[in-house]
């Protein structure tokens, strides 16, 4: 299979504009003849569904939540980047492009990233017009803040709830189209298969989570906007329902899965407090501006933090990285926290935590100043831990936060399966091996508002009048396969709950394919994961039936897919015998302990094709070479 990225030729600055002119248009009267299926209603799916409906397409939108407004985009805190240069501080489309390619450690596609930076400015306009209550200056203009990985102030925000406000903007646009009858919403409905006929995506099979009914929906194009797969780790900052199933079902039907081992670990999360832990909560990384990170010098030191004298504390980031100190990038901060905990110097229950101490900052600026900057975060911390961070240092630990990998897409955001698109976190294309803060919201809305609505027209217009109904045999077959799988999960009647399997799988992936990976560890994981998967399929215990709301059954289907994904992640991590961004192989580090890339051998996208059978899947690697014509690859250093 030859991977064609379909990146148009020409100058990077004019590529997208020229290409848009060349794309085939659909005349307004004809748009209503096309049906589009949208799976997922977060920032990417919600914005795409609304925009396509405005253009005249008939959209069916599906989400597993009870309302489109609850997709996990809602939880994003910090902000959204855009190259507006409102602060007159030297920002530009090119600078945002440059920062994003560099931040991604030179593993993203230049043309896609440039387009992302270009349309970023339109996103802010659109959201402001919808009534998103962005932070404002007293003069009424928009306020900005700065964020990691950039030296300009280009992040727009709405207090610490930017994702919520952008999603509500998107949901309101979607609701307007629901009222107009152009979008039909299917909440509490989960996609369980994609239907492909003669090589083209023609629809999906879904299960109604309330009634258990399995039905088919046909369309001219299918768009997956189903988010990331961080929950493969069981514990992550994702919502509990976030899952890989829709993307994975597409992968099993032939869509390539790209760079699965690129996962982002966020350094400042509230640590695990016990075995019952169900998810991890992020604390904005802005806390590192004023907090000092430390652990005791002595392993196993169980004294309360305030009784450990200064000379027995190790401010390890300040010691190792004198110039960046506590402000080293996310991946460096995370790995160092793991290292000190591995040495037995971690703090809190289980020894998996480090202190983030505001004592000096409070002494320097006063408690009031800290309250103004971080009041809401301190309150959230106290609510969860029961500890007062003004008096006792916070405890933090890294947690899985975002997945850069995803379905392989070309410049049109189409997978290698014609008619099947992937947008937002579900695709792989824009963040390379590491995503910068405030760029996930930007990408979701860029794809949904300003990229997909153009590119999808070019595809559907070429297939005008070519319809297939759900009475086609391919739909019947897919429905039967879905129903059979549901029955299988219910019929095992073993001894172990879904959560117990998911927890154990998560621990394996975290241990061997988490913050640091090694050849021997990955090989161990590749023995343990299939063994556990085998036990899952023979010893799973799911009660109840398939014809009503059954939350254990829903989870079981998702965890089954996570098992296969976990194996592919480890294979990908093993194959990528270099370090880059969030993918850190112990064998490949600089003398300073940083990720050491090998551009000569690994400057490509790994796109995996699935084969084999259900009990022993196999994968074949396809490579998309990456070229950097505008941003010259370099080695990072934060000393």
């Amino acid at each position, binding site marked *: 299979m030859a991977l064609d990225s379909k990146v148009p030729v020409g100058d990077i600055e004019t590529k997208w504009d020229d290409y848009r002119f060349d794309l085939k248009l659909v005349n307004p009267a004809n748009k209503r003849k096309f049906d589009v299926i949208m799976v997922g209603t977060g920032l990417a799916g919600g914005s795409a569904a609304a925009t396509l409906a405005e253009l005249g397409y008939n959209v069916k939108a599906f989400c597993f939540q009870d309302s489109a407004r609850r997709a996990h985009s809602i939880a994003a805190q910090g902000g959204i980047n855009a190259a507006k240069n409102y602060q007159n501080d030297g920002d530009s489309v090119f600078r945002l492009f440059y920062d994003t390619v560099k931040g991604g450690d030179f593993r993203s596609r230049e043309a896609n990233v440039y387009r992302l930076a270009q349309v970023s400015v339109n996103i802010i306009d659109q959201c*402001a017009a919808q009534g998103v*209550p962005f932070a404002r200056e007293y003069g009424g203009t928009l306020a900005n803040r700065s964020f990691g990985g950039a030296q300009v102030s280009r992040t727009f925000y709405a207090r610490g709830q930017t994702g919520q406000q952008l999603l509500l903007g998107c949901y309101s646009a979607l609701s307007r189209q629901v009222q107009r009858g152009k979008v039909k919403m299917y909440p509490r409905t989960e996609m369980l298969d994609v239907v492909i006929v003669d090589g083209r995506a023609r629809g999906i099979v879904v299960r109604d989570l309330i009634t258990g009914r399995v039905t088919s929906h046909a369309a001219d194009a299918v768009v997956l906007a189903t988010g990331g797969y961080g929950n493969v780790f069981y514990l992550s900052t994702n919502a509990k329902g976030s899952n890989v199933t829709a993307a994975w079902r597409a992968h099993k039907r032939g869509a390539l899965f790209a760079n699965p081992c690129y996962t982002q670990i966020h350094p400042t999360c509230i640590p695990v407090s016990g075995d019952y*832990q169900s998810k991890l909560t992020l604390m904005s990384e802005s806390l590192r501006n004023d907090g000092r990170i430390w652990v005791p010098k002595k392993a196993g030191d169980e004294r309360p933090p305030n009784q450990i004298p200064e000379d027995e504390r190790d401010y390890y980031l300040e010691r190792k990285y004198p110039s960046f100190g506590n402000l080293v990038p996310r991946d460096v901060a995370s790995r160092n926290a793991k290292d000190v905990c591995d040495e037995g110097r971690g703090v809190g229950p289980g020894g998996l935590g480090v202190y983030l101490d505001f004592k000096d900052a409070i002494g320097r600026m006063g408690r009031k100043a800290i309250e103004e900057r971080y009041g809401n975060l301190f309150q959230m911390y106290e609510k969860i831990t029961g500890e007062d961070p003004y008096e006792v240092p916070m405890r933090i630990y890294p947690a899985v936060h975002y997945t850069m990998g995803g379905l392989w897409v070309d410049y049109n955001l189409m997978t290698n399966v014609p008619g099947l698109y992937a947008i937002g976190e579900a695709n792989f294309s824009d963040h390379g091996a590491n995503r910068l803060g405030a760029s996930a919201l930007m990408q979701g809305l860029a794809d949904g508002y300003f990229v997909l609505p153009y590119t999808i027209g070019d595809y559907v217009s070429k297939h005008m009048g070519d319809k297939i109904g759900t009475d086609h045999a391919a739909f019947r077959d897919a429905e039967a396969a879905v129903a059979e799988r549901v029955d299988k999960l219910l019929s095992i009647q073993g001894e172990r709950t879904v959560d117990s399997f998911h927890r154990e799988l998560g621990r394996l992936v975290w241990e061997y394919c988490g913050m640091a990976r090694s050849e021997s560890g990955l090989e161990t994981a590749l023995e343990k994961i299939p063994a556990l998967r085998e036990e899952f399929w023979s010893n799973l215990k799911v009660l109840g039936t398939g014809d009503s709301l059954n939350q254990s059954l829903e989870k079981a289907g998702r965890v089954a897919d996570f098992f296969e994904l976990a194996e592919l992640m480890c294979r990908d991590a093993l194959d990528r015998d270099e370090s880059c961004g969030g993918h850190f192989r112990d064998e490949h580090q600089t003398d300073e302990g940083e990720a050491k890339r090998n551009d000569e051998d690994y400057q490509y996208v790994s796109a995996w094709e699935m084969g084999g059978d259900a009990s022993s899947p196999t994968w074949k690697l396809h490579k998309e070479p990456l070229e950097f014509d505008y941003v010259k690859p370099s080695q990072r250093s934060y000393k």
Partner: protein
Amino acid sequence: MGGTSSATMNLKLHVWRQSGPQSGGEMVTYEARDVSPDMSFLEMLDVVNERLIEAGNEPIAFDHDCREGICGMCGMMINGVAHGPEGGTTTCQLHMRHFEDGDEVWIEPWRSAAFPVVKDLVVDRSAFDRIVSAGGYISVNTGSAPDANEIPVPKVDADQAFDAAACIGCGACVAQCPNGAAQLFTSAKVAHLGVLPQGQPERWQRVMDMVTQMEAEGFGGCSNHYECEAVCPKEISTDFIARMNRDYLKATAKGRKASPGTGQSIGNG
């Protein structure tokens, strides 16, 4: 060591069990043993559910997703109070350190005619979506927006709009209201868009349509109990209700009528 508390507690739970929308339900009693004070309320239920499954009993169904207080998916009556005793919090952000060893805890679904029970603690809140669809938006097609700084918004207005827009749509306001009224939810959306300059062109039609839809959904009327504000996890002010009532009167005085098709409950109510 950090100062997390370690003594566990034992609780007696009385939980509403109902197998489906059409079936009757009952309170069932469960023992929740060895509950850590650091667990969230939902994690406590997770543990109870794991033990139920191991013993061959169907787990308690409840809605939840983000578990960080923002998606609005979770919610249950805990000892008669929506989202429990702490105030200003969602159920997922309520922690067990607010309970004591030996406590009895009554757990029920949201109670409202407009939120029918789906199963156990899960209810159908789609009425909220229909209220928003009736007019909770600014009609601006993608691509037709002016530069964002061309519409200056006074900071106080932006802040007020945000205070209203912080609503997470959980439905606690309705569940706690003795009348099952949805005024706090509806007014928050009306105010969010109504105080912004971008929201002015549709201001009067919006309030007319959203209120009409709200009334058609089977929610009760507001009689100023203020219970909604007391349990709102985002502490949304009832001042917005007064604002909505004023706008609704003005819209009526201006002769606005509900848009055709608005106010037809697809409904449950």
